[in-house]
């Protein structure tokens, strides 16, 4: 049985290798899309260094901390900080005007009491928090705002935490002194004072914190997560790879119907081959082609566009195996319901392209309106793309993409189920 499966597999790979149309559909087309789209859209998924996003900054702070945060932000590659406009220092009104006119898309405003409130809060956690205002053009897409917002919040939080650290550390030592055995209390207090003094005199706060013998881990609050968005290669390489991967459904469907039409399927049916071996032998080569497609396209992404593959290649393999199961399942389904190769050629192309579009291959789903984002869940492409991007863009591992892989396997099971039910061997 294994021998027969491998014979059929090998034969189909040979047939496919001579099928120029199929090879173009499966390899050349996605490669061209990747090449063209990644380059064409490289501006709109602005990579940080080559096209920095302008950011208006209004600093009303009477203290020093806002200036420190701004100095940090100026070191960020992807941001171009603007504190003046045509020679005038920026005010909130000026910034609102610029955004309203569409000259700029986003501004941040530090209030007058920014430093005071942060420092006061270090001593008394009940005192009010400082408020930084984000002004944004509502039309600015999430793929633009997301990274900017993330960077800004991150840097401000860091400055604030470092500024609070000496006071909080001092308070911590005071608490320890209060609870210590009476004879040790003065010593503990003294160590605390010396430590705080060193922190304050050390110049750059960040430097002194890490230089100090004590390491502090400063975590952002739980609800503060920097959501990352894909750049052009991270969107288009996995996207159009999937586009090509799901086109296997068309090639596979046509191949099965052609065998039926040309009578070779009959010849196989009168041979002592089980129907299971026949089907597996017919599916396996296309499954393997899927894996080759992904390997080649991702390799091209890495070599041509310097795309990172994230931290867990195994996770990419898991998604690929699951996505390929769904695509070959779809192919069998198409073969089961189709009548002639010509008919399913057109129908399957339409189906596969529609699923790709709905699934966010052509237009990223995060720029789609909410109802379309929900609708995209009916497309296996959407799940596979989300899985790939979790790994490539967000650096997540195999356990994080299990839901996507699971969804793809459910698609695969549904496709295979209906296909086997509807499939006619004769």
């Amino acid at each position, binding site marked *: 049985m294994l*021998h*027969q499966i491998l*014979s*059929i597999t090998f*034969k189909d790979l*040979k*047939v496919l290798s*001579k*099928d120029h149309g199929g090879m173009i559909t499966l390899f050349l087309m996605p490669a061209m899309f990747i090449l063209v789209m990644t380059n064409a859209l490289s501006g709109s998924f602005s990579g940080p260094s080559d096209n920095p996003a302008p950011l208006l900054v209004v600093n009303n702070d009477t203290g020093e901390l806002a200036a420190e945060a701004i100095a940090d932000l100026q070191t960020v590659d992807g941001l171009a900080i603007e504190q003046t406009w045509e020679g005038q220092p920026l005010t909130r009104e000026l910034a609102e005007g610029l955004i309203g006119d569409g000259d700029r898309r986003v501004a941040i405003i530090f209030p007058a009491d920014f430093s005071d409130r942060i420092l006061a809060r270090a001593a008394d956690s009940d005192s009010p928090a400082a408020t930084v205002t984000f002004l944004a053009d509502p039309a600015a897409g999430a793929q633009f705002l997301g990274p900017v917002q993330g960077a800004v919040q991150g840097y401000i939080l860091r400055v604030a935490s470092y500024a609070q650290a000496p006071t909080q550390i001092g308070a911590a030592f005071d608490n320890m002194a209060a609870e210590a055995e009476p004879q040790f209390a003065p010593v503990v207090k003294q160590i605390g004072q010396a430590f705080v003094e060193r922190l304050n005199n050390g110049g750059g706060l960040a430097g002194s914190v890490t230089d100090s013998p004590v390491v502090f881990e400063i975590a952002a609050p739980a609800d503060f997560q920097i959501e990352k968005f894909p750049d052009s290669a991270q969107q288009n390489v996995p996207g159009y790879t999937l586009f090509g991967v799901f086109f296997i459904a068309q090639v596979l469907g046509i191949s099965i119907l052609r065998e039926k039409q*040309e*009578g*070779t399927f*009959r*010849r*196989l*049916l*009168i*041979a*002592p*081959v089980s129907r299971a071996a026949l089907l597996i032998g017919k599916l396996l080569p296309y499954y393997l082609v899927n894996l080759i497609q992904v390997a080649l396209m991702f390799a091209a992404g890495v070599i041509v566009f310097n795309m990172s593959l994230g931290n867990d290649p195994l996770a990419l393999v898991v998604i690929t195996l699951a996505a390929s199961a769904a695509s070959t399942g779809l192919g069998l389904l198409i073969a089961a319901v189709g009548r002639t190769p010509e008919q399913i050629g057109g129908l399957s192309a339409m189906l596969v392209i529609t699923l790709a579009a709905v699934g966010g291959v052509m237009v990223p789903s995060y720029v789609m309106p909410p109802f379309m984002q929900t609708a995209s869940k009916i497309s296996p492409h959407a799940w596979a793309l989300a899985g790939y991007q979790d790994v490539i863009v967000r650096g997540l591992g195999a356990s994080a993409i299990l839901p996507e892989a699971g969804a793809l396997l459910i698609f695969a099971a549904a496709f295979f189920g209906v296909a086997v039910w509807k499939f006619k061997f*004769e």
Partner: protein
Amino acid sequence: MTNIVEASKLKKHYGDLQAVKGVDFAIRTGEIFGFLGPNGAGKTTTLSMLSTLLTPTSGTATVAGFDLVKQPGEIKKRIGLVPQELALYPTLSARDNLEFFGSIYGLRGKELTARAQWALELVGLADRAKDAIHTYSGGMKRRINIAAGLLHRPEILFLDEPTVGVDPQSRNNIFENVERLNREGLTILYTTHYMEEAERLCDRVAIVDQGRIIALDTPKALIDSLGGGIIHIGLSGKGDAVAESARALPAVKSIRRIDGKMEIEAHRAQEALVSVLEVANRLDANVTSLEILKPNLETVFLHLTGKTLRD
């Protein structure tokens, strides 16, 4: 001599259409058995049942001693089918096609290569083995189609109209191969609607029409059953009277009226012809056409069905 195929009351219905209406026949081991019949007679349907592709609606059959329905796996190993339509991968070479089909039957390695080479030489296409099938002529494709059914050394070969659309050269190659394979011990079921093929190749012929076997015997016996021959006479008027008188003549075996013509089955053709013309003269009937049919399977079919094989 044992029977390699035995069919009993074999029926196949497609919905309301009765493609095969209950046929009984046996194929003897070692013979070339012909299925001769016009389009739609049910030849392919019968072959499909015998090769386990189709389940009979009713009836039973054994092939090589195994039951069609209960032991299809055993039968599959022992039969070769050359389908009516070409069943090859057009973009692959002849050798790739043959080696693939051989491997499906479990052949591998040196044996597979040797069997493919043997089959290529048998059909005379070893020198074209590397060319893709779609570059072959129609006749060459047919020859490879036959070769593909032989790789696994079947005990019986089902050939379904192997010479359709074939040039004389390929046709001869096919005939010679059928005869040679049969000499070497292969039983062959040969399906055709060319009576010359059935007459030349087959030890016994079943004449099929509309899902039934209407005659089954050696070609010679079938032809001899026509007796001295068949005469068609066209008459203008008085046909009934002439037929009436002619029926009593000693040289005439039987008389039928078909489409205004009179078909005379004779014991002795020439004597019958002379005496029937005398009767017509006496009764003052005008003879408008006259035809003496050659005694062959075509004539047998015409006589049995009133139709020609290629209506």
